[in-house]
Each structure stands twice: as C-alpha cells, then as structure tokens.
C-alpha cells in the first residue's frame, strides 16, 4: 500500500498514474489517501482505514460478505455494492456506509436489533454484508414481500442459519423502519 503523498506519472509519459490520490467519505468521516490502482475497495476499508467490519468471504463476487453501501452509484440513493469487486479509485469522491456506521449513539440500527432478536446469525461471518445488502434492498423497496426479501439477498451466502431467521429479521426490521420512518 502506497502512502506517499506525491503522485508519480508513469514512464510511458502517457498521463497514466501509478498512484492515485482519492478522497472518500466513510461513515461520515472524510479520508484522503494515495492508493495503488490495483488496491481493492475491501482492502482499502479493512487494511488502510482499519474498518474490519466488512468481511472477505469468497473474494470472487459471489458471497456478499464484503457488501457496503455507496452513494452516487445510480439514481442518487445509497446502493449495495460488493467491495471485493471494486477498485478503491472507483470510490474517489463518493460516500460509503459500512456496518460500523449503522449504530447511532450506542443504539443498534433496527436491522442489527432484528438480527439479534430473530437469531439471524450464528457464526456472524456473513452478517455485516447481509445487513448492508438488506439495507440496500429496503432503501429501494421499503415494504418487501418475503419473496422479494429472498431475491434481494440472493447475492449473500450464509453457511450457518439456513436463511429463515435472516428473512424473518429483515421482514421485522422493514416493518419497524417503515413504522418509525427510519431511512438509513
């Protein structure tokens, strides 16, 4: 990981860069770093910023453990994306929300509470990605049917729970969030 401030142009003299300055807002905090082009967003979050809540499961875009929310992907709203399939430079100028940014003033987010209450986790490895995907889904569709919840989290794998309690938790959280008008 390059941390030098200077930005080197490459030998080819083609205006291509070996190091890219980026500014990213994560959970409301602004970070400025210089990153290698090949640095993946998940590694930036975990290794550079120390935000290890987002996990690496498959590392092949399949399991969703690395899911975070990002603004300005399309349509202005927060969208769930897989940060293992994303270069850090693609996040330049964008806002990101990770699992660490959900609780407010020591109070768990309705989704976190619902996962706890409905036993929506066992080992917990998939949970951060599962919750961020669920939030991404609820922001697009605040009152999903059970079928829509199932489809919405089809990009997230859980090897422990068998999904039933995860679906119950998301359903319960959706109802609480609509009732209380909770957005993010």
């Amino acid at each position, binding site marked *: 990981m390059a941390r030098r401030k200077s930005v080197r142009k*490459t030998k080819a003299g083609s205006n291509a860069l070996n190091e890219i300055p980026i500014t990213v807002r994560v959970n409301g905090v602004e970070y400025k770093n210089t990153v290698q082009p090949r640095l993946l967003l998940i590694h930036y979050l975990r290794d550079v910023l120390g935000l290890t809540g987002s996990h690496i499961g498959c590392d092949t875009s399949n399991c969703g453990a690395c899911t975070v929310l990002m603004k300005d992907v399309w349509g202005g709203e927060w969208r769930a994306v897989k940060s293992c399939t994303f270069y850090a430079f693609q996040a330049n100028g964008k806002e990101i929300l990770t699992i660490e940014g959900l609780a407010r003033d020591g109070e768990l987010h309705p989704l976190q509470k619902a996962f706890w209450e409905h036993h929506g986790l066992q080992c917990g490895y998939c949970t951060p990605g599962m919750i961020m995907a669920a939030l991404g*889904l609820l922001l697009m569709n605040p009152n999903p049917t059970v079928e829509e919840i199932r489809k919405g989290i089809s990009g997230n794998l859980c090897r422990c729970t068998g999904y039933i309690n995860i679906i119950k938790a998301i359903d319960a959280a959706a109802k609480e969030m609509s009732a209380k008008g909770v957005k993010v």
Partner: protein
Amino acid sequence: MIPKSFEYFEPKTLSEVVGFLKKHKENAKVLAGGHSLIPMMKLRLAAPQYIINLEPLRKSLSYIKVGGKSIRIGALVRHAEIEHSQILKRELPILPAAAEWIGDMQVRNMGTIGGSVAHSDPASDWPVVMLSLNAVFTLYSGKKRKVPASKFFIGPFTTAIKPYEVLTEIEIPRLPKRHGWSWKKFERKAGDFATVNVATLILPKDGHIGSASIAVGSVHYRPYRVTEGERLLKGAKPDLELVERVAESAASMAEPTSDLRGSAEYKRHVTKVFVKRSLIEAIERANLNLR
C-alpha cells in the same frame, strides 16, 4: 486475490479515451462497472497494462431516451437502472424483465449494459435480448460507426468493437404498444449465469402472428436467432404443434458444450423446453389464441 499491477488513466472526454486507446491498443482496457473485468483481473485471466476509468464520463454516457422511432440507452446505464425504469416497463417490458435476473442486486447496481455487450460472455443475458430486438450499437473512435446486433456478436468474448473503439450507445427500434414478449432464463442456482436464455417478441396482426423474433443464448458459441422458426411463425395462426416445431428447430441449431451446467444433450433438451415456454408466453401476451 490481487490483480497484477496496472497504471491508471482518468479521461475528461471521450476523445481522450480514444486517444489513449489508439496509443496503447490491446494494452489498455476501459473499465465500466468492472463486474466482468475486475473478477478476470483478480484471477489474472486479464492483466492489462492500463485501465481507463469511464466513470468520469458517466454524465454523458448514462441515459435512457425514448423518442421517435427508437429507444436510446447510454453505454454506462447500469442493469439496475433498466430493472427499475418506469418508462421501460411501459415501453419495452422485456428490458426490465431481463435486467431483473442478471446476477444479484449488488451486481446489477454496478454492471452496465455497455460492459455486458462489449464483454460478450456467451452465457450472458443482454446479447440475447439485443439480438432479438435488432439493436444497433454506436462505436466511437473519433468518428461514429453503427453496427447492428446481427453483425456485432462474433463469438465468445468477441464483438465487432475494435481495440481503439468505445461503445457509446445502444439504439433499439420501438415496438408497437401491443406486442407479445417473453424473457426466459433458466439458471442452475440463484444468481447464476444462464444454462439457456431465450428472448421472444411477437407482433400480432389481425389475429395472426405478423412477425416473430426469437433469440437463444448460452447453448452456442454466440447468441443466435431461430431464423427457420421465425419464418414458420410469420403469418400463422399459432397452435401447439407449430410451437413444438419452432422449439425443435431452435434446439437443432444449438451446439452446446458439456460443463457444470449440464451435458450437451441435456442443454439441447432444455433449449427446446424453454423456447416452447417462451413462445407460448409471448403468444399469450400478444393476445393471440393458441389452439
């Protein structure tokens, strides 16, 4: 998995992209949604020396415009934007219906229609839909050139796009409001690429089939049109026997490979089954009687 080191180019204009591509040819690759290119780079199946980020051009290359005789879609429009587009749900419902079954929510939030057709995985979804709709692709290299879908998809991961060209727009001829359509994607497990995928469009005419278009993917080295079947359908009053013949003709054109998703024989069988289901659905949606 860590991709091989590469250098980064951030263009301000499309001309800068083309200039850079002309200089570095195959050594440079444009990055759209990254949902084919990044996995390939992580597996080191691709190791371009330069990556050109198209994101700075998002404003000018991301639009859905319906007007006159065509629907025009910018290359950087994401799958999810098509899935949730209200105007497309009314105008050309096969597009949102197909988008909905690409990968998963996160993949659809990033992947672009332009990236998908440029990548041209023989098991991907947009190429099949585009072929059924007679889409036309605009390629830019300082000047514009238009290539119809029938000449665009050349083979696995191979299209008419030259190394120094950028796909900028997809133009789809508008269909009359009352058309029948069907998108059938058969996947082995949720979010998978298709085992077989079929796009069918029917234009009804006085209780008959005026014309039909059927495209099939994933069971051949590139998506194909069921030309003989389309000819049989033209002007016909559809019945189940005709549907059966068209489906057989579609399956006989397939040259699938045996892999994790099934043997060649099995895939030819599901091709027939899914063309049949697709055709029946499109005929019903066209409000035609199926005898």
